[in-house]
């Protein structure tokens, strides 16, 4: 088994957590990587500046989809201030596999979408 596709990544890819959409999301955003076709949408339910519910949907490579699934588990229940503090390396650490420069945008698309949904910052997380 290759380093990149350890059990955790495959598990989240094949059994994504918090997958789907919310009926009446407070915030919602969708984005894609046009070069590889990865697409992620994230819906948020927010109460008292805290993410009380989250769903993601989309399609693309295993890294982008597993990363989104892992991210939803990471931020559910967190405050928007805590999400603001979340950096690229935090998510890469959660993935627990080596991400090559070519796959970085796959791995970070979900975080980009989350930040755009949460507070309108539409740029690649650093």
């Amino acid at each position, binding site marked *: 088994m290759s380093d990149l596709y350890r059990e955790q990544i495959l598990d989240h890819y094949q059994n994504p957590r918090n997958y789907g959409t919310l009926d009446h999301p407070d915030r919602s955003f969708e984005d894609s990587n046009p070069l590889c076709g990865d697409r992620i949408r994230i819906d948020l339910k927010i109460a008292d500046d805290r993410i009380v519910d989250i769903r993601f949907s989309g399609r693309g490579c*295993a890294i982008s989809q597993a990363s989104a699934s892992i991210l939803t588990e990471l931020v559910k229940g967190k405050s928007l201030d805590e999400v603001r503090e979340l950096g690229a390396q935090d998510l890469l650490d959660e993935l627990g596999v080596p991400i090559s420069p070519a796959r970085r945008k796959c791995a970070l698309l979900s975080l980009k979408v989350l930040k755009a949904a949460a507070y309108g910052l539409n740029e690649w997380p650093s």
Partner: protein
Amino acid sequence: MTASKPVQLDVARIRADFPIFQRTVRDGKPLVYLDSAATSQKPVSVIEALAGFYRTSNANIHRGIYELSEEASIRYEEARARVARFIGAARSEEIVFVRNTTEAINMVARTWGASRLRAGDVVVTTVLEHHSNIVPWHQLAAERGIVVRFVDIDDTGRLRLDQLETFLRNEPVKLVAVTHVSNALGTINPVREIARLAHEAGALLLIDGAQSVPHLPIDVRELSIDFLAFSGHKMLGPFGIGVLWARYELLSALPPFLGGGGMIRTVTTEGFTPGDVPARFEAGTPSVADAVALGAAVEYLEAIGLAAIRQHEVSLLDYALPRLAEIPGIRLYGPVGADRAGVISFTLGDIHPHDVAAILDTHGVAVRAGHHCTQPLMRRLGVTATTRASFYLYNWEADVDRLVAALREACRVFGVAG
């Protein structure tokens, strides 16, 4: 595909000429290089020609009144003559050195297109094209109001020549711009037939030869084409050198491309007069050493023979296609038959091609995954991307075996069932 017995290439001996195969990748695995459609590896003779030029002949060309400059100029022009013979050009002045295929096509758009096309004129291209043979025409459409038409493919990946005929019959088509070999599907287009149709309608024919000149015997006069664009780096040569070929009379009637040194006859404070062909199209100091090394690449290819290289790639296709077809969940794209080059695009179950390529990479197998700069074709095929393996003279059956084994591993990792 073909019943004729190939002149067997001595692949082990060829591989010994390519230093890259001495290295390993991904923790000691031998390199299985199946991405020659993106760029080829380089034989030692090309590497030595490039380094040797800088070591012993380096000087700027065409102006220096001293031995080194004369020598550099001679070697640059020898390379031009060698490339001209290689593609059957009538004279070496028909070879314009550029950076790559993209620059060659843009030069046609910016010189011939900008001087000959008016609003409403039609350029016909195809859905098989690389973006480099689409975007320059879109640019002319935006700037000058020309119309760009696209010939579709049938479900086997072959061009719909009936559509081409309809465009040629009903519209003011001035240029047909088509790839000789599809970089994504490997389709070999019937260039002679397309040339006949275009010329009967009074249109010129531009051929994107990026994927054909390195792999097939080409004779521009026998094919009856008007413009041919190709890149050195896909044919064992270095990066940064490519070729635009056109008939001398056609080139002579075109305005210059870039302005600057080398492309002029005279310059005054009032204006300039352009120089002769091909200098008119080579403003500024060209990639002299790269051109010389391209000459060495052509020499290497000629020594082995393009017909033998083509036969070798056909044998590899014959070996690979049935073995790939047995892999669970695989979908192979592109035509099967004599009009297929050594390019194999596929998808594997619903695994994203980037994941397929990443698994292959862990086994030392280098392939391309993505849209291959052919987004209209990907849309036509109903996919966002494919994985692509492509062959050249240094590949052998062992490479195919390693590809197949790694793809079976990808199936296992992602649970693709048969």
